[in-house]
């Protein structure tokens, strides 16, 4: 009896030491197609590194943001690798919450990363997160509808051209709407789209002294243009449409144009999902001739929180997941069109990728055209194209988005919405100590 118990205890002890010798990395990530693919392919990594085990925590973007922010701010230490965006990286790096990634492997080739993306993830010359996939925004349009209306879409259209074409294509009786744009309130929804658009109208969030700029004519032009355009040529209920709603509308053939994330290009051209897969063309996000286009820049990136005790293993995994070799692995298993886009120059030089992804050239041009360090016509004190990389922005951005959404829904006027946006931003900036 005693012997059996002893043997059992010894067995349990042995088993636990065997388990303890393998390091387990807990990875928090978003539920996007490319990430799910990485999760599936990660068995290749664990086969090469038998001493590392991976545990995945997949979440919807907003839940993820809330969880990883709580965890890192309180040094909870639940995660070894976090998937974060270009918004978080500059803020968190300044707080010393992230580990500088300087151990990604000898053949990592950090200079191959697209400069615009790398710039957004670098603070004081150090890379704090490795980009997994990058995106900008561009115009996706229906070639058949444009042909029918006798309009030629240039590669780099102006806002006037887009507005004019949208109104011509609209045929509300047949449920064809000239343009679908984000209207749902949220800092990552309509505020992202309108901030990027405002950049091309010469507007900006703050002047060099952090004073909010919603009382300027540039913002008034932006919002008036947007509200008028969607009222004339947008789908009904546009004020509640976000990325997914517009994706569904476009895929079912109801939008003439859709200006949104470049990552959508692979969805709308996928015949399994989209009714209009072979009738989609691409163009740069529009401008007003002021030197800035209305396209944003975002990169889902992998970072190691400073609280992690397994930093070396975590960097090893990140080095694998964001490497050129990973791109080749995806290509060999699932085809070039499924390789995570927007992070490496070498991918866009690859002839096979160019052939498999008809949207590759336009995606690259769009990413190159966005500069998070100089996002606006006039100088600004912040980093970020469709956001302002300060901790207060999530709250302010969503509150301002609600004002814009209300203006689009017609429950308030453009002037009133801008006035409210100005007041609430001013109040929050005073509270944050940016202005007196």
């Amino acid at each position, binding site marked *: 009896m005693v012997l059996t118990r002893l043997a059992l205890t010894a067995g349990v002890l042995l088993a636990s030491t065997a388990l303890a010798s393998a390091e387990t990395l*807990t990875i*928090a990530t*978003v*539920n*996007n*197609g490319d990430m*799910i693919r990485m*999760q*599936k392919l990660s068995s290749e990594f664990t086969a090469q590194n038998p001493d590392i085990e991976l*545990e*995945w*925590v*997949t*979440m*919807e*973007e*907003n*839940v993820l943001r*809330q*969880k990883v922010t*709580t965890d890192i701010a*309180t*040094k*909870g*230490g*639940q*995660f070894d690798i976090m998937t974060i965006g270009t918004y978080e990286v500059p803020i968190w790096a300044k707080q010393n919450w992230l580990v500088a990634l300087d151990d990604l492997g000898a053949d990592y080739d950090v200079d191959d990363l697209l400069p615009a993306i790398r710039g957004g993830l670098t603070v004081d010359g150090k890379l704090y997160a490795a980009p997994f996939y990058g995106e900008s925004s561009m115009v996706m349009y229906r070639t058949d509808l444009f042909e029918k209306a006798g309009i030629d879409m240039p590669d780099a259209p102006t806002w006037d051209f887009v507005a004019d074409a949208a109104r011509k294509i609209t045929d509300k009786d047949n449920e064809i709407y000239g343009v679908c744009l984000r209207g749902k309130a949220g800092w*990552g929804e309509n505020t992202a789209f309108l901030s990027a658009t405002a950049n091309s109208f010469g507007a900006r969030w703050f002047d060099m002294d952090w004073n909010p700029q919603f009382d300027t004519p540039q913002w008034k032009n932006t919002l008036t243009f947007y509200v008028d355009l969607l009222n004339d040529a947008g789908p009904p209920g546009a004020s509640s449409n*976000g*990325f*997914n709603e517009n*994706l*569904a509308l476009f*895929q*079912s053939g109801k939008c003439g144009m859709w200006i949104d*994330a470049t*990552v*959508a290009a692979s*969805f709308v051209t996928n015949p*399994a*999902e*989209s009714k209009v897969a072979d009738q989609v063309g691409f163009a740069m996000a529009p401008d007003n001739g002021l030197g800035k286009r209305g396209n944003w820049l975002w990169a889902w990136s992998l970072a190691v929180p400073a609280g992690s005790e397994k930093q070396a293993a975590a960097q090893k995994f990140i080095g694998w997941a964001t490497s050129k070799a990973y791109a080749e692995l995806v290509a060999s298993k699932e085809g070039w069109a499924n390789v995570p886009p927007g992070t490496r120059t070498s991918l866009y030089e690859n002839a096979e990728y160019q052939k498999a992804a008809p949207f590759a050239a336009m995606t690259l041009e769009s990413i190159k055209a966005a500069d998070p360090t100089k996002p606006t016509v006039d100088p600004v004190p912040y980093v970020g194209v469709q956001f302002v990389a300060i901790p207060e922005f999530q709250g302010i951005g969503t509150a301002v988005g609600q004002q814009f959404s209300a203006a689009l829904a017609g429950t308030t006027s453009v002037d009133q919405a801008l006035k409210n946006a100005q007041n609430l931003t001013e109040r929050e900036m005073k509270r944050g100590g940016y202005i007196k």
Partner: protein
Amino acid sequence: MARETTRNRKLVFTVIGWTIGLTLFFPILWTIITSFKTEGEAIASPPSFVFFQWTLENYFEVQTRSDYFKHAMNSVIISLGSTGLGLLVAIPAAWAMAFSPTKHTKNVLMWMLSTKMLPPVGVLVPIFLIFRDFGLLDTRTGLVAVLMLMNLPIIVWMLYTYFKEIPGEILEAARMDGATLGKEIVYILAPMAVPGIASTLLLNIILAWNEAFWTLNLTAADAAPLSAFIASYSSPEGLFWAKLSAASTMAIAPILVMGWFSQKQLVRGLTFGAVK
């Protein structure tokens, strides 16, 4: 004539009853139907109700991507654990308040209920820090404790209401007949309180099963229950409705079946004492 009227009235009530029932059930039915569609069909407009290519692909996808049984087991442990622990504390508390009330009993009950009036997010950071310091983050023990505390006011209130319905005279009569305290509890009180305790138990299992604030915020990989499992299938970029529906169907199936079987008990418990 009179019989005719009764029959007509019965028919009207039946129709109204079914209409309300089906309306309430429709979202769940729609979720189940959507789980058998492809992502493309899930967003098709106008949507198809029956005539589409039925597929099990989403269920396979969900099963290969995440470990359903691990999450389900966590849900079972967390909901049963928190409810069981809650009852252990709440039965004596409600008992005392119902059978030997003091002048502060009402205030105590009110105070307990008032803790439910604070939005949970208001105490997220302190609780998160306590969990971190005690090493309870991402553990089932931690979740059992926090869900037990969250649901305790409801358990106490429900039990208190049931116990109040039991007339004190019966207990007195038992005592007159020479029953000891132990016998009084086992033979007189317990049988009368069982329906109330059972429905409290069932309702709290459902509440704990569906809880999606603490279970999402305090877990990562090890202790994540089905609410976290569902949350991982929603996505702001890309189509996810069919897969999300499959995950939701899998997550609600056990509790739905349990609710179905214990329906009678639940309804009886909830309407207990409603008609006097």
